[in-house]
Protein backbone atom coordinates (compact mmCIF):
# COMPACT_ATOMS: atom_id res chain seq x y z
CA UNK A 1 0.00 0.00 0.00
CA UNK A 2 2.72 2.43 0.94
CA UNK A 3 6.38 2.31 1.66
CA UNK A 4 5.77 2.73 5.38
CA UNK A 5 4.21 -0.71 5.37
CA UNK A 6 7.46 -2.17 4.12
CA UNK A 7 9.76 -0.66 6.67
CA UNK A 8 10.02 -2.35 10.05
CA UNK A 9 8.69 -0.10 12.75
CA UNK A 10 6.72 -0.26 15.93
CA UNK A 11 3.41 0.87 14.54
CA UNK A 12 2.02 1.20 11.09
CA UNK A 13 -0.02 4.24 10.17
CA UNK A 14 -3.23 2.86 8.82
CA UNK A 15 -3.88 5.44 6.17
CA UNK A 16 -4.58 9.08 5.53
CA UNK A 17 -8.13 8.23 6.53
CA UNK A 18 -9.79 9.88 9.49
CA UNK A 19 -8.72 8.67 12.94
CA UNK A 20 -9.26 4.98 13.31
CA UNK A 21 -11.30 5.58 16.39
CA UNK A 22 -11.78 7.98 19.23
CA UNK A 23 -11.04 6.85 22.72
CA UNK A 24 -11.91 9.23 25.56
CA UNK A 25 -12.00 12.03 23.07
CA UNK A 26 -8.49 11.36 21.77
CA UNK A 27 -8.20 10.34 18.16
CA UNK A 28 -6.53 7.00 17.67
CA UNK A 29 -4.69 6.79 14.41
CA UNK A 30 -3.30 3.38 15.02
CA UNK A 31 -4.19 0.38 17.02
CA UNK A 32 -2.07 -0.42 20.05
CA UNK A 33 0.77 -2.81 19.45
CA UNK A 34 -0.37 -5.14 22.17
CA UNK A 35 -3.71 -6.73 22.26
CA UNK A 36 -5.07 -4.89 25.22
CA UNK A 37 -8.09 -2.89 24.12
CA UNK A 38 -9.89 -0.87 26.74
CA UNK A 39 -13.34 -2.46 27.00
CA UNK A 40 -15.08 0.87 26.36
CA UNK A 41 -13.18 1.18 23.10
CA UNK A 42 -13.95 -2.27 21.77
CA UNK A 43 -17.01 -1.19 19.92
CA UNK A 44 -15.33 1.71 18.20
CA UNK A 45 -12.43 -0.52 17.23
CA UNK A 46 -14.80 -2.92 15.69
CA UNK A 47 -16.46 -0.09 13.82
CA UNK A 48 -13.10 1.13 12.67
CA UNK A 49 -12.72 -2.01 10.60
CA UNK A 50 -14.82 -2.58 7.57
CA UNK A 51 -14.83 -6.30 8.18
CA UNK A 52 -12.59 -9.30 8.67
CA UNK A 53 -10.60 -8.63 5.49
CA UNK A 54 -9.88 -5.15 6.75
CA UNK A 55 -8.79 -6.50 10.13
CA UNK A 56 -6.62 -9.14 8.49
CA UNK A 57 -4.99 -6.58 6.23
CA UNK A 58 -4.34 -4.46 9.26
CA UNK A 59 -2.67 -7.31 11.06
CA UNK A 60 -0.57 -8.19 8.03
CA UNK A 61 0.54 -4.61 7.47
CA UNK A 62 1.10 -3.98 11.15
CA UNK A 63 3.34 -7.01 11.44
CA UNK A 64 4.98 -6.23 8.13
CA UNK A 65 4.08 -9.67 6.86
CA UNK A 66 4.41 -10.72 3.28
CA UNK A 67 0.94 -11.01 1.82
CA UNK A 68 2.06 -13.75 -0.50
CA UNK A 69 3.67 -15.81 2.19
CA UNK A 70 1.44 -15.37 5.17
CA UNK A 71 2.57 -17.24 8.24
CA UNK A 72 -0.84 -18.70 8.89
CA UNK A 73 -0.18 -19.77 12.45
CA UNK A 74 0.78 -16.30 13.64
CA UNK A 75 -1.92 -14.50 11.69
CA UNK A 76 -4.59 -16.89 12.85
CA UNK A 77 -3.49 -16.53 16.46
CA UNK A 78 -3.58 -12.72 16.38
CA UNK A 79 -6.88 -12.64 14.57
CA UNK A 80 -8.44 -15.07 17.01
CA UNK A 81 -7.27 -12.98 19.95
CA UNK A 82 -8.91 -9.86 18.55
CA UNK A 83 -12.11 -11.70 17.87
CA UNK A 84 -12.02 -13.24 21.35
CA UNK A 85 -11.44 -9.79 22.88
CA UNK A 86 -14.44 -8.49 21.00
CA UNK A 87 -16.53 -11.46 22.06
CA UNK A 88 -15.60 -11.15 25.72
CA UNK A 89 -16.68 -7.52 25.48
CA UNK A 90 -20.09 -9.06 24.80
CA UNK A 91 -20.28 -7.16 21.54
CA UNK A 92 -22.59 -8.39 18.93
CA UNK A 93 -19.94 -9.60 16.60
CA UNK A 94 -20.74 -9.79 12.93
CA UNK A 95 -20.88 -13.35 11.68
CA UNK A 96 -18.29 -12.53 9.04
CA UNK A 97 -15.58 -12.25 11.69
CA UNK A 98 -16.33 -15.73 13.02
CA UNK A 99 -16.53 -17.13 9.52
CA UNK A 100 -13.10 -15.69 8.76
CA UNK A 101 -11.71 -17.24 11.95
CA UNK A 102 -12.99 -20.62 10.79
CA UNK A 103 -11.48 -20.10 7.35
CA UNK A 104 -8.09 -19.20 8.80
CA UNK A 105 -8.08 -22.31 10.95
CA UNK A 106 -9.06 -24.40 7.96
CA UNK A 107 -6.23 -22.99 5.84
CA UNK A 108 -3.80 -23.54 8.66
CA UNK A 109 -4.85 -27.17 9.08
CA UNK A 110 -4.74 -27.86 5.33
CA UNK A 111 -1.18 -26.59 5.22
CA UNK A 112 -0.25 -29.10 7.91
CA UNK A 113 -1.70 -32.05 6.01
CA UNK A 114 0.47 -33.92 3.54
CA UNK A 115 -0.64 -33.53 -0.07
CA UNK A 116 -2.35 -36.56 -1.57
CA UNK A 117 0.03 -38.26 -3.97
CA UNK A 118 -2.63 -38.80 -6.61
CA UNK A 119 -3.72 -35.22 -7.17
CA UNK A 120 -0.81 -33.78 -9.08
CA UNK A 121 -2.88 -30.82 -10.09
CA UNK A 122 -3.55 -29.95 -6.52
CA UNK A 123 0.10 -30.12 -5.73
CA UNK A 124 0.85 -26.55 -6.64
CA UNK A 125 -2.19 -25.15 -5.03
CA UNK A 126 -1.42 -23.26 -1.87
CA UNK A 127 -4.42 -23.24 0.47
CA UNK A 128 -3.70 -19.55 1.06
CA UNK A 129 -4.09 -18.54 -2.58
CA UNK A 130 -7.77 -17.67 -2.43
CA UNK A 131 -7.31 -15.67 0.77
CA UNK A 132 -4.39 -13.77 -0.76
CA UNK A 133 -6.41 -13.00 -3.86
CA UNK A 134 -9.24 -11.62 -1.75
CA UNK A 135 -6.90 -9.61 0.46
CA UNK A 136 -5.19 -8.03 -2.52
CA UNK A 137 -8.46 -7.23 -4.25
CA UNK A 138 -9.90 -5.75 -1.09
CA UNK A 139 -6.81 -3.67 -0.48
CA UNK A 140 -6.94 -2.43 -4.05
CA UNK A 141 -10.56 -1.37 -3.65
CA UNK A 142 -9.86 0.18 -0.27
CA UNK A 143 -7.17 2.30 -1.88
CA UNK A 144 -9.43 3.07 -4.84
CA UNK A 145 -12.10 4.31 -2.41
CA UNK A 146 -9.61 6.73 -0.89
CA UNK A 147 -8.48 7.91 -4.31
CA UNK A 148 -12.09 8.44 -5.36
CA UNK A 149 -12.78 10.40 -2.22
CA UNK A 150 -9.87 12.67 -3.03
CA UNK A 151 -11.24 13.65 -6.42
CA UNK A 152 -12.89 17.07 -6.42
CA UNK A 153 -16.58 16.49 -5.83
CA UNK A 154 -19.47 18.69 -6.83
CA UNK A 155 -20.94 20.44 -3.84
CA UNK A 156 -18.00 19.60 -1.59
CA UNK A 157 -15.06 20.90 -3.61
CA UNK A 158 -16.64 22.98 -6.33
CA UNK A 159 -20.00 24.51 -7.10
CA UNK A 160 -21.97 24.51 -10.33
CA UNK A 161 -22.84 27.84 -11.83
CA UNK A 162 -26.54 28.53 -11.66
CA UNK A 163 -27.76 31.86 -12.96
CA UNK A 164 -31.34 32.76 -12.32
CA UNK A 165 -33.92 32.91 -15.07
CA UNK A 166 -36.85 35.13 -14.24
CA UNK A 167 -39.68 33.21 -15.88
CA UNK A 168 -42.10 36.01 -15.07
CA UNK A 169 -40.02 38.65 -16.87
CA UNK A 170 -40.86 37.28 -20.30
CA UNK A 171 -43.70 34.80 -19.87
CA UNK A 172 -44.00 32.24 -22.58
CA UNK A 173 -46.79 33.01 -25.02
CA UNK A 174 -48.94 30.36 -26.60
CA UNK A 175 -47.97 29.22 -30.04
CA UNK A 176 -50.70 29.22 -32.65
CA UNK A 177 -50.42 27.28 -35.85
CA UNK A 178 -52.48 27.98 -38.95
CA UNK A 179 -54.09 24.60 -38.47
CA UNK A 180 -55.37 25.74 -35.07
CA UNK A 181 -57.29 28.49 -36.83
CA UNK A 182 -58.80 26.07 -39.29
CA UNK A 183 -59.86 23.84 -36.41
CA UNK A 184 -61.37 26.81 -34.60
CA UNK A 185 -63.27 27.77 -37.71
CA UNK A 186 -64.46 24.22 -38.16
CA UNK A 187 -65.77 24.18 -34.61
CA UNK A 188 -67.64 27.41 -35.27
CA UNK A 189 -69.28 25.97 -38.34
CA UNK A 190 -70.26 22.81 -36.55
CA UNK A 191 -71.79 24.88 -33.80
CA UNK A 192 -73.64 27.22 -36.10
CA UNK A 193 -74.77 24.39 -38.45
CA UNK A 194 -74.53 26.99 -41.13
CA UNK A 195 -71.26 26.36 -42.81
CA UNK A 196 -72.67 27.27 -46.23
CA UNK A 197 -72.82 30.91 -45.20
CA UNK A 198 -69.29 30.97 -43.99
CA UNK A 199 -67.65 29.17 -46.82
CA UNK A 200 -64.79 31.39 -47.80
CA UNK A 201 -62.85 30.91 -50.96
CA UNK A 202 -59.23 31.69 -51.54
CA UNK A 203 -60.13 34.64 -53.72
CA UNK A 204 -62.36 36.08 -51.10
CA UNK A 205 -59.62 35.74 -48.54
CA UNK A 206 -57.14 37.64 -50.65
CA UNK A 207 -59.75 40.36 -51.19
CA UNK A 208 -60.36 40.54 -47.47
CA UNK A 209 -56.66 40.76 -46.78
CA UNK A 210 -56.41 43.61 -49.28
CA UNK A 211 -59.40 45.28 -47.64
CA UNK A 212 -57.48 45.39 -44.36
CA UNK A 213 -54.42 46.71 -46.15
CA UNK A 214 -56.38 49.47 -47.84
CA UNK A 215 -57.95 50.50 -44.54
CA UNK A 216 -54.51 50.52 -42.94
CA UNK A 217 -53.13 52.58 -45.81
CA UNK A 218 -55.89 55.14 -45.47
CA UNK A 219 -55.59 55.41 -41.73
CA UNK A 220 -54.39 58.85 -40.66
CA UNK A 221 -54.61 60.11 -44.22
CA UNK A 222 -57.16 62.38 -45.65
CA UNK A 223 -58.08 61.73 -49.24
CA UNK A 224 -55.62 59.58 -51.09
CA UNK A 225 -55.54 59.44 -54.86
CA UNK A 226 -57.31 56.27 -55.97
CA UNK A 227 -54.42 55.22 -58.18
CA UNK A 228 -51.98 55.31 -55.28
CA UNK A 229 -53.73 52.26 -53.85
CA UNK A 230 -52.56 50.24 -56.84
CA UNK A 231 -49.14 48.81 -57.43
CA UNK A 232 -49.05 47.90 -61.13
CA UNK A 233 -45.68 46.18 -60.75
CA UNK A 234 -47.36 43.39 -58.79
CA UNK A 235 -49.31 42.25 -61.79
CA UNK A 236 -52.83 42.19 -63.08
CA UNK A 237 -54.32 39.76 -60.55
CA UNK A 238 -53.14 42.07 -57.78
CA UNK A 239 -54.78 45.05 -59.48
CA UNK A 240 -58.03 43.14 -59.73
CA UNK A 241 -57.91 42.06 -56.08
CA UNK A 242 -57.24 45.63 -55.00
CA UNK A 243 -60.09 46.91 -57.13
CA UNK A 244 -62.46 44.29 -55.70
CA UNK A 245 -61.30 45.22 -52.19
CA UNK A 246 -62.05 48.88 -52.80
CA UNK A 247 -65.47 48.03 -54.21
CA UNK A 248 -66.24 45.80 -51.23
CA UNK A 249 -65.06 48.43 -48.75
CA UNK A 250 -67.18 50.99 -50.48
CA UNK A 251 -70.20 48.67 -50.50
CA UNK A 252 -69.77 48.02 -46.77
CA UNK A 253 -69.59 51.78 -46.23
CA UNK A 254 -66.09 51.62 -44.86
CA UNK A 255 -64.55 54.02 -47.33
CA UNK A 256 -65.70 56.96 -49.29
CA UNK A 257 -64.80 57.31 -52.93
CA UNK A 258 -65.07 60.77 -54.44
CA UNK A 259 -64.64 62.33 -57.88
CA UNK A 260 -65.49 65.96 -58.43
CA UNK A 261 -66.24 65.55 -62.10
CA UNK A 262 -65.85 62.91 -64.79
CA UNK A 263 -62.23 62.24 -65.82
CA UNK A 264 -60.88 64.09 -62.81
CA UNK A 265 -58.74 62.10 -60.34
CA UNK A 266 -60.65 59.78 -58.02
CA UNK A 267 -59.92 60.11 -54.31
CA UNK A 268 -60.49 57.62 -51.55
CA UNK A 269 -60.73 58.20 -47.80
CA UNK A 270 -61.95 56.43 -44.71
CA UNK A 271 -65.67 56.98 -44.21
CA UNK A 272 -65.28 59.01 -41.09
CA UNK A 273 -68.34 60.95 -40.11
CA UNK A 274 -66.66 63.44 -37.85
CA UNK A 275 -63.19 64.52 -38.89
CA UNK A 276 -64.07 65.76 -42.34
CA UNK A 277 -61.13 66.77 -44.38
CA UNK A 278 -61.86 68.80 -47.47
CA UNK A 279 -61.21 67.26 -50.83
CA UNK A 280 -57.88 68.49 -52.20
CA UNK A 281 -58.31 71.26 -54.71
Amino acid at each position, binding site marked *: MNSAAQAPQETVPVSPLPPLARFRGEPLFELPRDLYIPPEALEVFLEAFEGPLDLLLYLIRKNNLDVLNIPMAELTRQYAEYVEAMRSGRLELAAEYLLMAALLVEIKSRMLLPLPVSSREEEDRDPRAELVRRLLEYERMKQAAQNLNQLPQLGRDF*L*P*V*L*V*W*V*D*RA*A*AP*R*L*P*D*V*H*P*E*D*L*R*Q*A*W*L*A*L*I*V*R*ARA*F*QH*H*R*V*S*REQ*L*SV*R*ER*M*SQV*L*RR*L*RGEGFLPFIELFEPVRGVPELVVTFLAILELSR*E*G*LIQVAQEAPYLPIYVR*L*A*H*GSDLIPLPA
Partner: protein
Amino acid sequence: MDPTLSPSPPDLDLPTLKRVLEAALLTSSEPLALGDLKKLFDHDVGNEPLRKLLEELRTDWEGRSVELVSVASGWRFRAKPEFQKYLERLQPQKPPRYSRAVLETLAIIAYRQPVSRGDIEEVRGVSVSGNILKVLETRGWIEVVGHREVPGRPALYATTPAFLDDLNLRSLEELPPLDDLGSLVEEREGLQEATAETAARAD
Protein backbone atom coordinates in the same frame (compact mmCIF):
# COMPACT_ATOMS: atom_id res chain seq x y z
CA MET B 1 -9.82 48.49 -11.52
CA ASP B 2 -10.69 51.67 -9.71
CA PRO B 3 -7.59 53.05 -7.96
CA THR B 4 -9.68 54.84 -5.32
CA LEU B 5 -10.61 51.50 -3.82
CA SER B 6 -7.54 51.52 -1.60
CA PRO B 7 -6.51 50.66 1.02
CA SER B 8 -6.23 47.19 -0.31
CA PRO B 9 -7.50 44.53 2.10
CA PRO B 10 -4.76 42.64 3.86
CA ASP B 11 -5.15 39.19 2.40
CA LEU B 12 -6.68 39.59 -1.02
CA ASP B 13 -5.94 42.02 -3.79
CA LEU B 14 -8.85 43.73 -5.48
CA PRO B 15 -8.86 41.64 -8.68
CA THR B 16 -9.08 38.49 -6.54
CA LEU B 17 -11.83 40.03 -4.39
CA LYS B 18 -13.75 40.72 -7.56
CA ARG B 19 -13.24 37.18 -8.87
CA VAL B 20 -14.49 35.74 -5.59
CA LEU B 21 -17.54 38.00 -5.69
CA GLU B 22 -18.26 36.99 -9.25
CA ALA B 23 -17.95 33.28 -8.43
CA ALA B 24 -20.24 33.66 -5.42
CA LEU B 25 -22.89 35.48 -7.42
CA LEU B 26 -22.71 33.05 -10.33
CA THR B 27 -23.08 30.00 -8.11
CA SER B 28 -25.81 31.31 -5.82
CA SER B 29 -29.41 30.59 -6.68
CA GLU B 30 -30.58 33.35 -4.34
CA PRO B 31 -29.76 37.06 -4.36
CA LEU B 32 -26.82 37.88 -2.10
CA ALA B 33 -27.02 40.90 0.19
CA LEU B 34 -23.92 42.92 1.04
CA GLY B 35 -23.95 41.17 4.42
CA ASP B 36 -23.77 37.75 2.73
CA LEU B 37 -20.99 38.84 0.42
CA LYS B 38 -18.92 40.09 3.36
CA LYS B 39 -18.98 36.59 4.83
CA LEU B 40 -16.83 35.47 1.89
CA PHE B 41 -13.79 37.20 3.29
CA ASP B 42 -11.84 36.90 6.51
CA HIS B 43 -11.22 40.59 6.84
CA ASP B 44 -13.89 43.21 6.84
CA VAL B 45 -14.50 44.63 3.40
CA GLY B 46 -16.38 47.89 3.76
CA ASN B 47 -19.76 48.47 2.14
CA GLU B 48 -18.36 51.13 -0.14
CA PRO B 49 -15.53 49.10 -1.70
CA LEU B 50 -17.99 46.22 -2.04
CA ARG B 51 -20.54 48.36 -3.86
CA LYS B 52 -17.86 49.75 -6.13
CA LEU B 53 -16.70 46.26 -7.02
CA LEU B 54 -20.28 45.20 -7.70
CA GLU B 55 -20.79 48.23 -9.94
CA GLU B 56 -17.60 47.32 -11.77
CA LEU B 57 -18.86 43.78 -12.23
CA ARG B 58 -22.17 45.07 -13.53
CA THR B 59 -20.33 47.18 -16.10
CA ASP B 60 -18.07 44.26 -17.04
CA TRP B 61 -21.13 42.18 -17.86
CA GLU B 62 -22.89 44.78 -19.97
CA GLY B 63 -23.72 43.56 -23.45
CA ARG B 64 -23.71 39.90 -22.40
CA SER B 65 -26.64 37.50 -22.24
CA VAL B 66 -26.57 37.58 -18.47
CA GLU B 67 -26.66 40.70 -16.33
CA LEU B 68 -25.90 41.58 -12.73
CA VAL B 69 -28.93 43.20 -11.15
CA SER B 70 -29.65 44.64 -7.76
CA VAL B 71 -32.99 43.50 -6.35
CA ALA B 72 -34.65 44.07 -3.00
CA SER B 73 -32.84 41.26 -1.22
CA GLY B 74 -29.45 41.79 -2.80
CA TRP B 75 -27.44 41.22 -5.96
CA ARG B 76 -27.88 38.42 -8.42
CA PHE B 77 -27.04 37.46 -11.94
CA ARG B 78 -29.97 36.77 -14.21
CA ALA B 79 -30.49 35.88 -17.83
CA LYS B 80 -31.68 38.83 -19.86
CA PRO B 81 -35.37 38.49 -20.69
CA GLU B 82 -34.69 38.64 -24.42
CA PHE B 83 -32.74 35.37 -24.18
CA GLN B 84 -35.55 33.53 -22.46
CA LYS B 85 -37.23 32.53 -25.68
CA TYR B 86 -34.16 30.41 -26.41
CA LEU B 87 -33.70 29.09 -22.90
CA GLU B 88 -37.29 27.92 -22.71
CA ARG B 89 -36.62 25.45 -25.49
CA LEU B 90 -34.51 23.46 -23.08
CA GLN B 91 -37.47 23.07 -20.73
CA PRO B 92 -39.69 20.20 -21.67
CA GLN B 93 -42.69 22.10 -20.29
CA LYS B 94 -45.90 22.00 -22.26
CA PRO B 95 -46.38 25.31 -23.99
CA PRO B 96 -49.36 27.36 -22.87
CA ARG B 97 -52.38 27.37 -25.16
CA TYR B 98 -54.99 29.95 -25.95
CA SER B 99 -58.55 29.22 -24.94
CA ARG B 100 -61.07 28.16 -27.53
CA ALA B 101 -62.68 31.62 -27.34
CA VAL B 102 -59.41 33.33 -28.21
CA LEU B 103 -58.65 30.94 -31.06
CA GLU B 104 -62.12 31.26 -32.55
CA THR B 105 -61.98 35.04 -32.35
CA LEU B 106 -58.61 35.02 -34.02
CA ALA B 107 -59.87 32.67 -36.72
CA ILE B 108 -62.83 34.91 -37.46
CA ILE B 109 -60.65 38.00 -37.67
CA ALA B 110 -58.12 36.18 -39.85
CA TYR B 111 -60.63 34.73 -42.32
CA ARG B 112 -63.27 37.49 -42.34
CA GLN B 113 -61.31 40.69 -41.79
CA PRO B 114 -62.02 43.47 -41.37
CA VAL B 115 -64.65 42.60 -38.77
CA SER B 116 -66.25 44.36 -35.87
CA ARG B 117 -66.82 42.87 -32.45
CA GLY B 118 -70.48 42.55 -33.43
CA ASP B 119 -69.50 40.46 -36.48
CA ILE B 120 -67.44 38.16 -34.29
CA GLU B 121 -70.27 37.77 -31.81
CA GLU B 122 -72.66 36.95 -34.60
CA VAL B 123 -70.46 34.15 -35.90
CA ARG B 124 -69.58 32.79 -32.48
CA GLY B 125 -73.13 33.09 -31.19
CA VAL B 126 -71.88 34.40 -27.86
CA SER B 127 -70.63 37.72 -26.63
CA VAL B 128 -66.92 38.40 -27.01
CA SER B 129 -65.26 39.84 -23.94
CA GLY B 130 -63.03 42.86 -24.39
CA ASN B 131 -60.40 40.77 -22.69
CA ILE B 132 -60.13 38.38 -25.62
CA LEU B 133 -59.54 41.20 -28.08
CA LYS B 134 -57.05 42.73 -25.69
CA VAL B 135 -55.05 39.49 -25.45
CA LEU B 136 -54.75 39.45 -29.23
CA GLU B 137 -54.00 43.17 -29.48
CA THR B 138 -51.31 42.93 -26.80
CA ARG B 139 -49.78 40.06 -28.66
CA GLY B 140 -49.60 42.39 -31.66
CA TRP B 141 -51.62 40.05 -33.84
CA ILE B 142 -54.72 42.19 -34.43
CA GLU B 143 -55.32 45.89 -34.71
CA VAL B 144 -58.08 48.35 -35.42
CA VAL B 145 -57.88 49.34 -39.06
CA GLY B 146 -61.00 51.50 -39.27
CA HIS B 147 -64.52 52.03 -38.08
CA ARG B 148 -67.78 51.03 -39.60
CA GLU B 149 -69.99 53.98 -40.36
CA VAL B 150 -72.99 52.82 -38.43
CA PRO B 151 -74.30 54.07 -35.11
CA GLY B 152 -71.63 53.58 -32.47
CA ARG B 153 -68.92 53.47 -35.17
CA PRO B 154 -67.66 50.02 -34.12
CA ALA B 155 -63.96 49.38 -34.55
CA LEU B 156 -62.95 47.05 -37.36
CA TYR B 157 -60.28 44.50 -36.58
CA ALA B 158 -57.77 42.96 -38.93
CA THR B 159 -54.70 40.83 -38.49
CA THR B 160 -51.30 42.50 -38.56
CA PRO B 161 -48.15 41.69 -40.51
CA ALA B 162 -46.70 40.47 -37.17
CA PHE B 163 -49.44 37.84 -37.06
CA LEU B 164 -48.33 36.54 -40.44
CA ASP B 165 -44.69 36.57 -39.34
CA ASP B 166 -45.39 34.70 -36.11
CA LEU B 167 -47.40 32.04 -37.91
CA ASN B 168 -44.73 31.84 -40.54
CA LEU B 169 -47.08 32.90 -43.35
CA ARG B 170 -46.31 35.19 -46.25
CA SER B 171 -49.91 36.19 -46.75
CA LEU B 172 -53.38 35.34 -45.52
CA GLU B 173 -53.81 33.16 -48.58
CA GLU B 174 -51.43 30.71 -47.00
CA LEU B 175 -53.89 30.08 -44.21
CA PRO B 176 -55.39 26.59 -44.51
CA PRO B 177 -58.19 26.75 -47.09
CA LEU B 178 -61.68 26.29 -45.77
CA ASP B 179 -63.11 24.94 -49.05
CA ASP B 180 -62.90 21.33 -48.01
CA LEU B 181 -64.79 21.90 -44.83
CA GLY B 182 -68.07 20.90 -46.46
CA SER B 183 -67.04 17.31 -46.94
CA LEU B 184 -65.74 17.14 -43.42
CA VAL B 185 -68.89 18.47 -41.90
CA GLU B 186 -71.12 16.27 -43.98
CA GLU B 187 -69.48 13.23 -42.55
CA ARG B 188 -71.06 12.61 -39.26
CA GLU B 189 -68.05 10.80 -37.85
CA GLY B 190 -65.63 13.39 -39.01
CA LEU B 191 -67.78 15.98 -37.34
CA GLN B 192 -67.77 14.19 -34.04
CA GLU B 193 -64.06 13.70 -34.25
CA ALA B 194 -63.51 17.32 -35.03
CA THR B 195 -65.72 18.38 -32.19
CA ALA B 196 -63.94 16.11 -29.80
CA GLU B 197 -60.58 17.32 -31.00
CA THR B 198 -61.57 20.93 -30.74
CA ALA B 199 -62.85 20.36 -27.26
CA ALA B 200 -59.60 18.63 -26.33
CA ARG B 201 -57.49 21.41 -27.78
CA ALA B 202 -59.53 24.01 -25.96
CA ASP B 203 -58.45 22.57 -22.63
